[in-house]
């Protein structure tokens, strides 16, 4: 599923790195606990979260994630967007709740992630 398809499915607004919307996402993770995000290996993954601080972007960066979606209309700071731009991570926000946004993506074929043993 491309990031553009994700954007359309959950009605998200793109906040940065629009040039990367055609990139393919293979998995996703909905979580407010960054250490839980870091516990699972994902490939070209999308992070959906309601947490807003620079460590969200750093976590995504460490995991080589390609897109962050802030749910419940949470808006990241300029500093966070600047960090995301450095790594080409697409940042979007949507007004859906985490559960609903994840459910829409999952039911349209974007699966979860593999657990690393």
């Amino acid at each position, binding site marked *: 599923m491309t990031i553009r398809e994700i954007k359309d499915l959950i009605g998200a607004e793109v906040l940065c790195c629009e040039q990367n919307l055609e990139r393919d996402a293979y998995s996703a993770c909905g979580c407010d*606990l960054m*250490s839980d995000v*870091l516990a699972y290996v994902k490939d070209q993954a999308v992070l959906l979260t309601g947490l807003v601080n*620079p460590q969200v972007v*750093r976590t995504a960066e*460490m995991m*080589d994630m390609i897109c962050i979606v802030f749910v419940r209309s949470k808006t990241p700071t300029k500093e966070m967007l600047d960090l995301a731009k450095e790594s080409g991570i697409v940042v979007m926000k949507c007004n859906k709740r985490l559960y609903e946004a994840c459910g829409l993506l999952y039911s349209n074929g974007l699966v979860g992630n593999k657990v690393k043993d």
Partner: protein
Amino acid sequence: MSEPLVFHFDINGDDFSTAGQASVQIKNNLRQLGLSPEIIRRVSIAMYEGEINMVIHANGGTADVKVYEDCVEIILADNGPGIKDIDMAMKEGYSTASDSTRSLGFGAGMGLPNMKRYTDDMKIDSTVGVGTTVTMKINIA
């Protein structure tokens, strides 16, 4: 064995928002050295969790990353409060972090277990009231 390439970082313990800068830097350095994306990801995640730990528990510290021909060694040292019970600290879900740390998305008791998960060897030397040194190794070959 030839001399390792060493990268040294001082981890600022005052500002949670800048935590992780050293990990980002090491990620770039290892990329320039041409290591595989999988190794780079493992090193940077392990170091990032360690960096966060040093900021939330120990008011900062130092990080040294040594790149050998066959492995990458990460040594994280702080002069923080030390770990009272290392076995407990290694259990997933156990944490002594404050509620304010949890509200930032960390302190879920996954930091040390994640560091172990992504490394081939991890050793913790800690003395209560003196500090903690965590040494991690990731094999390249």
